[in-house]
């Protein structure tokens, strides 16, 4: 029996249904029936029709209990302070199931929606994304886990020695901190991207990172092929296409071959992926 592989699904909805909570709830429940590690919610700031991915993930979080929820967020035109608390809150709402896929927006058309900046070449935007991921992690750590003390004797709700300014200063932004949101259940919600700047990298190259490399593949890919790629070093796969083909055909076959879980063994996304809860860098 080989080692276990990990499976994620990129959720897609089309037509008017794409704007209903009901459709997204059906999809996420289906993914959870298939004991997938996580689902991703695509997004852009380019005007493509669709709902905000973080809100969509939050809307379905209370309706599920195990599957990881990984919305896409665009670095280039957003505030790391806002995204940090949004993903921390998704983690509180989902009790340890949140992640985020960071992307960049190199198109001038996207920049026109904001009217704030001209965008540099894509490699530079990914440099900025690296700083952004660093700021997310620092803000998540800006509250120690036991910062809330409710000490009636001194009248103090928090121990302010356990709240930290992050004082990040980079080429693109400065952020003072601390976060307004307490440290999320996972410590650090999962950070994923097509570049190696977090816990999961989506890549066709199994050696792209010493972190978990997920390959983006079509849902019609055979179990044999996935197992072969897994043996070459891919930790898992993000499947695109018919969700029921994944949950009703691929998953049962992979379970039978002993390479995919038959039930959830953890309640957090980091737990599903075998990732430890990170220590706090400020503690």
């Amino acid at each position: 029996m080989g080692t276990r592989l990990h499976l994620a699904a990129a959720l897609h909805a089309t037509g008017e249904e794409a704007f209903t909570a009901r459709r997204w709830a059906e999809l996420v429940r289906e993914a959870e029936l298939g004991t997938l590690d996580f689902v991703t919610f695509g997004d852009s700031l380019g005007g493509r029709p669709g709902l905000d991915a973080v809100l969509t993930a939050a809307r379905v979080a209370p309706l599920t209990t195990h599957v990881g929820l990984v919305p896409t967020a665009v670095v280039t035109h957003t505030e790391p302070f806002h995204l940090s608390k949004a993903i921390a809150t998704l983690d509180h709402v989902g009790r340890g199931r949140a992640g985020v896929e960071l992307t960049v927006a190199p198109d001038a058309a996207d920049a026109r929606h904001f009217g704030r900046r001209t965008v540099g070449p894509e490699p530079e935007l990914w440099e900025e994304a690296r700083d952004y991921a660093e700021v997310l992690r620092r803000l998540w750590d800006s509250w120690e886990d036991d910062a809330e003390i409710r000490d009636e004797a001194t009248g103090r709700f928090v121990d302010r020695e356990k709240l930290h300014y992050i004082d990040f200063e980079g080429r693109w932004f400065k952020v003072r901190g601390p976060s307004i949101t307490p440290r999320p259940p996972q410590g650090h919600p999962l950070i994923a991207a097509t570049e190696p700047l977090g816990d999961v990298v989506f890549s066709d190259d199994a050696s792209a990172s010493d972190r978990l490399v997920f390959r983006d593949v079509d849902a019609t890919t055979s179990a044999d092929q996935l197992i072969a790629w897994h043996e070459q070093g891919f930790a898992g796969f993000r499947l695109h296409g018919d969700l029921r083909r994944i949950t009703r055909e691929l998953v049962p076959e992979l379970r039978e071959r002993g390479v995919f879980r038959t039930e959830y063994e953890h309640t957090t996304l980091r737990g599903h992926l075998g990732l430890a809860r990170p220590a706090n860098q400020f503690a």
Partner: protein
Amino acid sequence: MTKQIHLAAHFPGVNNTTVWSDPQAGSHIEFDSFVHLAQTAERAKFDFFFLAEGLRLREQGGKIYDLDVVGRPDTFTVLAALAAVTTRLGLAGTINSTFNEPYEVARQFASLDHLSDGRAAWNVVTSWDAFTGENFRRGGFLAQEDRYTRAESFLRTAWKLFDTGVGPFEHRDQHFDIGGTFGVPRSPQGRPVILQAGDSEEGREFAAATADAIFSRHGTLEAGQKFYRDVKGRLAKYGRTPDQLKVLPAATFVLGDTDADAQERAAVVRRQQVSGATAIRFLEQVWNRDLSGYDPNGPLPDVEPVTGENTIAQGRASVRMFKDPAQTVREWRERAAAKNLSIRDLVIDVSARQTFIGSADSVATQIDDLVQQDAADGFILVPHVTPGGLDEFADTVVPLLQERGVFRSEYSGPTLRDHLGIR
């Protein structure tokens, strides 16, 4: 004609109204607390749930303020999640027009309105301070006098995007020059309900021009009527009628089996809200100087306040209420001398009185009277305990209002605009 009352539930905030030391007090961040308050409000047929926001932890004397509840969720994320566990309740969130951009906020509110089937509301706030700006890319970029012009531009830009739905847009004004394609179809309400909380001249004018409801501090009969007449009187010049802007003061409450019992409970709550340490910090905000050496059970400080810009407290709008600290200090010294009050007693006396105190029947009467006498169209109720602080009100006061025929027994429509009776 008998007016119908509107009621909203304010999630307890990061100030000393919230009693975290109460044995019943629960988490301020776990989702279960938000679910509890929202479901209580929905069971009681409230118009909406309300979430405040502040984008930097408060400081006093250069240190993080540690005596009140600290820590909040992200507004959009928690409201979207609450849409999954409620079906009719409006979901109102505070979003700052200074440290956000219209394209992103319009997508978020349009998404929330779709995901909640038409229950989204936006409390539009502005800030300008460099203190909050330190958490954001642009820093403290906005001059104080520009905050309302940016807020109004921001809102009008967002409206253009809501109205566009999926398709091309162009918008250019003093603050924004943007264009391209919006990608969220027209949502069930078209536009989210707009709330405004500013009390200044500019804030009232902004509300009269743009808001569906205004959140005020004027909960008493005389002050409420004055404010009500003032803001409703501003509507005509914008081609609006008085019923198009609901006046909803914030209100605290303490209930009891009898009025006397409620008064006793209210006195206990006020002492919970104002510890000795809190009393000293409160005086520091007026004196604008360190008073940590004073005994809260002793007389008022003998030193004079530091006049000029208030520098001791950061991230706290309420310090601006004391426009003439020297005068305030004189009045408080006279009051303390006349009534023989310690520092803590004085702070309780001047700061902590609840809006409604009494048996369920007398609180229902007080609320109904204020609404029928045009001091308000309803109230945003602020419980002092999280998350169960609204339970007793929902179980005892709401049925009495329903019996009087002044509050709904069932929701008449699916959207928050339906609940508020606005279009």
